[in-house]
């Protein structure tokens, strides 16, 4: 792809947006605000990393919000009601969410069904299961939770880099390494480019599909644990609609929704842009929170239109040889 890569455009939008906000409210340009921005969007960053893999491979995962909700309820109940040690509860829920993702991937591959509808069923299933566990908000009082919540690295200027922000940064870096430097990552791009070609070139399409959805659900599980640290509670209605924020972050980050192109770093920037809009609205005080949705929608449109234009430009000289990307 010639010209500006989408990630660079995302970065420019972020920097320009940040500069504009900082001009209006100088306090935004402080490590305190940046630290809070990272903490508030930690779970979104984690789940968006997984979604990046899914979308680059040409799929979509609508179940992540429900998996986060289920995780918070499961962890809260396991620790508070069933008396399970927190670490054991974490391992159990991560195994459970990974298995859930693997099952969705297997159904998508074996029955050749659209990922959209399979993960939609997964979304109903996980949300319904969390309602069955408990419909009330369950507070978590385990000592681990207060330890983790209190832990923070001091940044110059008084900002706090909290434990969950660190977890998110580690996962973003790990995800970027996995996507860009490993054979697994290369296969993800190959699948998104063309399933048939990838299969002919020897990529085990079935195994890859299962692994990709497993990764997405596993990260959603981790995001759920992080969310429970963030709120110190488990609630079956938590993280409703997060799948949309996640997809929006991935798209704004320059990942092609048809698959085959994108990056984890771009997604991370997309998450930060969404966080920045939220922060600006908080600082302004007179704007209502629904402006976030409208601004996200406008950004989403701008980036998709941009992608559409870039793809059209890239295809023009080879229009006859380029087949439909299915």
């Amino acid at each position, binding site marked *: 792809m010639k010209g500006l890569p989408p990630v660079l455009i995302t970065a420019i939008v972020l920097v320009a947006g940040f500069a504009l906000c900082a001009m209006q409210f100088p306090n935004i340009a402080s490590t305190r605000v940046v630290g809070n921005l990272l903490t508030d969007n930690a779970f979104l960053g984690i789940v968006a990393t997984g979604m990046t893999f899914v979308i680059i491979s040409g799929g*979509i995962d609508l179940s992540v919000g429900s998996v986060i909700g289920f995780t918070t309820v499961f962890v809260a109940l396991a620790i508070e009601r069933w008396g399970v040690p927190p670490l054991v509860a974490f391992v159990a829920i991560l195994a459970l969410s990974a298995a859930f993702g693997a099952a969705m991937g297997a*159904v998508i*591959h*074996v*029955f*050749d*069904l*659209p990922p*959209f*509808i*399979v993960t*939609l*069923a*997964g*979304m*109903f*299933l996980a*949300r*319904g*299961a969390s*309602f*069955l566990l408990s*419909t009330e908000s369950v507070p978590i009082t385990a000592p681990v939770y207060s330890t983790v919540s209190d832990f923070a690295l001091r940044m110059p200027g008084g900002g706090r880099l909290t434990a969950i922000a660190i977890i998110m940064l580690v996962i973003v870096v790990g995800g970027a390494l996995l996507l860009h430097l490993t054979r697994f990552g290369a296969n993800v791009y190959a699948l998104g480019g063309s399933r048939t070609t990838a299969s002919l070139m020897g990529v*085990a*399409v*079935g*195994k890859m599909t299962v692994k990709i959805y497993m990764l997405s659900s596993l990260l959603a599980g981790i995001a759920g644990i992080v969310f429970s640290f963030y709120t110190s509670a488990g609630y*079956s209605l938590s993280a409703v609609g997060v799948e*949309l924020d996640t*997809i*929006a972050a991935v*798209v704004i980050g320059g990942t092609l*929704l*048809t698959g085959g192109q994108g990056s984890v770093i771009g997604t991370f920037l997309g998450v930060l842009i969404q966080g920045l809009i939220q922060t600006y609205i908080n600082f302004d005080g007179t704007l*209502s929170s*629904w*402006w*976030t*949705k*409208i601004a*996200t*929608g*406008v950004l*989403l*449109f701008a980036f*998709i*239109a941009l992608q*559409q234009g870039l793809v059209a430009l890239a295809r023009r000289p080879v229009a006859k040889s380029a087949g439909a990307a299915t």
Partner: protein
Amino acid sequence: MTALLPRRGLAQILALIVILAVDRVVSPQFFDLRLQDGRLFGSLIDVLNRGTPVALLSLGMVLVIATRGIDLSVGAIMAISGAIAASLADSHGLPVVLAAALGAGLVCGLWNGFLVAVLGMQPIVATLILMVAGRGIAQLITEGRIVTFSSPDLVWLGNGAILGLPVPVAIALGMLILTGAVVRGSALGLLIEATGGNARASELAGVGTRAMILSVYVWCGVCAALAGVIAAADIMGADANNAGLWLELDAILAVVIGGTSLFGGRFSLVLAVLGALIIQTMNTGILLSGYPPEFNLLVKAVVVLAVLLLQSPKFSGLAGIAARLRRTKA
């Protein structure tokens, strides 16, 4: 009518009968109907009445899916049109209110159709934009409050009765007949199916695929707006946060249960509406049986999986799956 109700509707009708029978076991008075103040009452009427929004949505959605598209924004469109109707209801007459609300749906549909047909975006992505932003727009109209109204005309639309039938049910029935007459009474339905089957081939054969795609999204927007007005009239208010929330998923589910393939190319209006009724009959049954309403989601998930597996071309007995698994492992 043969064009509207093909032979393949048997499974759906049987499913509805089975669910109705289960409901009858759960609640013995399920089939009781009584006439009061010129309106029928009873669980069956309740199912029809509650099922109206999803039935209307599925009428638009089924045409969109027939062109190989999908419309995720119908819930948000419901919120927008409901918000408009509620804010205008007490100061304007019913015709103005309806025109404004349905006009908003039309504009939303045009926007979706423009993105898909003219800019060539993937339908999921194109309609995702309005799904995210639409609820914000609805909040903007209601200024974040729950707008209530008392205009008797609009309330009648949600709670009145025509010939004993609740008005929403009559409207849904009218829309079904209207849509059926237009798409099946002319070649339009065939052209829509051709577009979904193979857009390129249809284009070469002289079908105006762009116009087809644009018009199905517009129709879907109008149907969604109508559903939004009815939902607002039903509760005599508009709640931009919750009106039509997740109903896009129910509408897609109804279409899938109705046997319309997500890969486009064929559709059945009657079966899609039947799908909406099946979903509502399940909902009502779960409520009547005393299970928590949250149980609905689990049941829906199982039903959608079952229907998908049955529809899947790869699903031909366990032997087929085993063979495929062995092949993928090798």
